């Protein structure tokens, strides 16, 4: 039961994009086309789950063991970067279509604050391994949800008449703000 509540709070209430405002560059960058948005969401889910596991293990079995928590940030960067590199190579070989769709955005995940943020939250909240796993998956799903919703809206905006100075990123940001307000309504839930 607690895990379900945790999942819901991660997906909706504390949505990584719309409540915590982490990972906003892929949010704006890959949300113009539904196809890319879905690809990006998948990549983030994949990377985030892996990163969640690996950073939890790193923290629990290496950093904590030797009392080296002050190395947390730098060692997390190292493992996440290596992981993303790995995912990139894997995709290029096995799913070239997805690789082409994500284009220059895949390497962006390396420096993605959403990934780093979730890993740090997991540690800060002192989650157990299972909790960390659930939180990583849920945050990633929340990311995907927001991104896909947003891409849907943006595809519609393309057809609408937008005043020139507001076109493109500007209207994107305004829409993102409204989506965030909508997600704010989940606040009382958990």
């Amino acid at each position: 039961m607690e895990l379900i509540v945790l999942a819901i709070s991660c997906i909706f209430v504390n949505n990584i994009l719309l409540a915590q405002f982490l990972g906003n560059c892929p949010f704006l960058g890959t949300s113009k086309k539904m196809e890319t948005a879905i690809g990006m969401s998948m990549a983030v889910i994949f990377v985030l789950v892996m990163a969640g596991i690996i950073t939890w293990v790193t923290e629990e079995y290496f950093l904590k063991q030797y009392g080296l928590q002050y190395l947390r940030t730098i060692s997390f960067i190292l493992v996440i970067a290596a992981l993303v590199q790995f995912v990139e190579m894997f995709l290029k070989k096995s799913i070239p279509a997805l690789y082409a769709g994500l284009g220059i955005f895949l390497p962006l995940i390396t420096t993605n604050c959403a990934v780093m943020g979730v890993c740090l939250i997991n540690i800060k909240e002192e989650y157990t391994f299972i909790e960390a796993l659930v939180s990583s998956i849920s945050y990633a799903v929340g990311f995907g949800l927001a991104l896909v919703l947003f891409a849907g809206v943006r595809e519609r905006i393309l057809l609408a008449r937008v005043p020139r100075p507001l076109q493109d990123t500007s209207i994107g940001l305004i829409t993102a703000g409204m989506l965030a307000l909508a997600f704010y309504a989940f606040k009382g839930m958990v």
Partner: protein
Amino acid sequence: MVEAILLMLGMGVVCGSILSIASKVFYVYEDPRIAEVEGVLAGANCGACGYAGCSAAAEAVVSGEDTAGVCVISGTEVAELVGGIMGLEVGVAEPLLSVNYCDGGSRADDKYYYSGIHTCAATESMYGGKRVCSVGCLGLGDCVKSCAFGAIEMGKNGYPEVKEGKCVGCGACETACPKDILKVRTMTERLLSFNKETDALAPCQQTCPAEIDISRYIDQIRTGDYEGAVNTIRERNPLLLSCGRVCPHPCEDMCRRGVEEDAVSINQLKRFAADYEMNSGKRFPISCAPDTGKKVAVVGGGPAGLSCAFFLRRIGHDVTIFDMMPKLGGMIRYGIPEYRLPKEVLEWEIEGITDLGIKVKSNVKLGHDFDISSLVAAEFDAVFLGIGAWKDYNLNIPGEDFKGCFTGIDFLTNFATYQQEEGLDPVFIGKKCVVIGGGNTAIDCVRTLVRLGAEEVSIVYRRTRNEMPANMVEIEAAEHEGINFYFLAAPTKVIGDDNGKATHLEYLKMELGEPDASGRRRPVAIDGSETLLEIDMIVTAIGQGPDIGFKTAEGKRIGELETTRWDTIDSVNPETLQTNIPYIFTGGDSATGASLVVEAIGGGRRAARSINQFLNGEKVINEENSLFKRNIPGTIFPSVDGLVGTTRATMPELDVDYRIKCFDEADLVITEETAKKESSRCLTCCRICYNKDKEKAA
């Protein structure tokens, strides 16, 4: 401390070895040239080339999708480096250039005074504009700021001017301009664009069938940039010397100054610019796009064919003109007489067009010497049919085959051929000649007959002077030259003598009755009013239609070509001029029926646009929001205030007594001084803003 170092080292080693193993396992072969090409590209990842960043562009080059000149922001140096890597010749890509389509914005009054952010974008979104004119340039210079190359400057008249040498065609200004006034286009796109409802167009340009940017060239004449004026005209009309002489200028009927007083003498200004080039002794350069390797056959070398060939050649296609006559020009050579358009002038003009690399095969007739299937066999990718309207209509009255009866086109072409070729028998000229009809052909026949020494020359026309379709100046000139006019007279019979020679023309007098469907009052015959006119030569010039004899000559694919009941070639859409046989296009008189030179020139360019689409494998469609044969609503004013009454430049003419004895050109060109004065009468209208004389005086 030691633990920290050990831990980081350990993690580094583990990550490193996993990655190196992975890179082995997941290795994908990638052309090493991609990385090399990417290395020399600008690296700005700006996306102006149309690819997602430099690496995508490099991939496109290596895969052969794009040329070495892919990077729009770096110059030839980079293109050469890329070419070196790829072992390619550097293709001379057509340069993109930014063009400002509004010249008049600053002339309009300001509508709002806004003290907020001074940018076009803000002003546009707040009020839709700052000027009275809601269409044109706002003059606040967002484009100037957007240009990273310093190619745009605010000109002294308050609208941006593009420096061609500096513009790289990156498109930043086009994005920055909230009014769609700055457009980045290749020459091909510019040459093939047509008036759109959303464009800023002066009434004259909206009306001109060739869609010449009239206010721009008039402005260039005013500032003394005659070469610029010629180039502006040539973007739409390759026959400027001819049009400058014979065009009945429908544009002047719509001239905004003409609402209150005399219209600007647009056509005389065109002739002035065109003559300036010819008299300067050199030809202004005409640029052509790189060769595309596509072959097009143009059948008929009249204005429509010449225009189509000119534009196709300029956008890089390989064009051959086939014509049944010995020389090119069509009706403007064999119909319009020497005194209106001297052959020497026409020769100079046509030479300039064919010199662009257009091949010409003359003395070959479609349906006799070659046919569509032989063109297909010779690997022509598309065919343009601009065969004009060369078959005279008959009156269908008794006695039309007596000796001394001729038809208009036959008479004029025979005489023109006689004038241009050696060793031909002279054409028959009567003493008392009558020409039947009220169009240009009829007037040209009578004016030619006068010059050939006929003693008495008359015109017989069914309706009145007001209904004559001929150009007004022509009618007036004929009156000055002593032609008799019989109006409201309908020929009924030709009477001949025993030798089969025509001696009299019988006609019925008419009166105007009820208006017909077209609103013109229909002439009705007065019973018993038969009148005889003594003559020895009759020329019937009551209209002509295309000669589509080649259609039946084959019975193959061409037999399916759809034609109308007037024998004109039908097109699927009058705006694309593609026929029901997809690779055949048409234009000019053969599509519209006997019409005007400018109309044929516009049609030729229209067809060139469609042919280009067809050759590129695109769908053949007309321009979106196109303004075809209509005006933008709300841009034609019923009255125009603030004009201070000026008079139009008069046309210098040869003295009547002298000119009727010879074929010297009757109309003369205006002087430079008059041209300057006349060009300053232009209001430089855009769509709605205009320059009031009062303001100028103040």
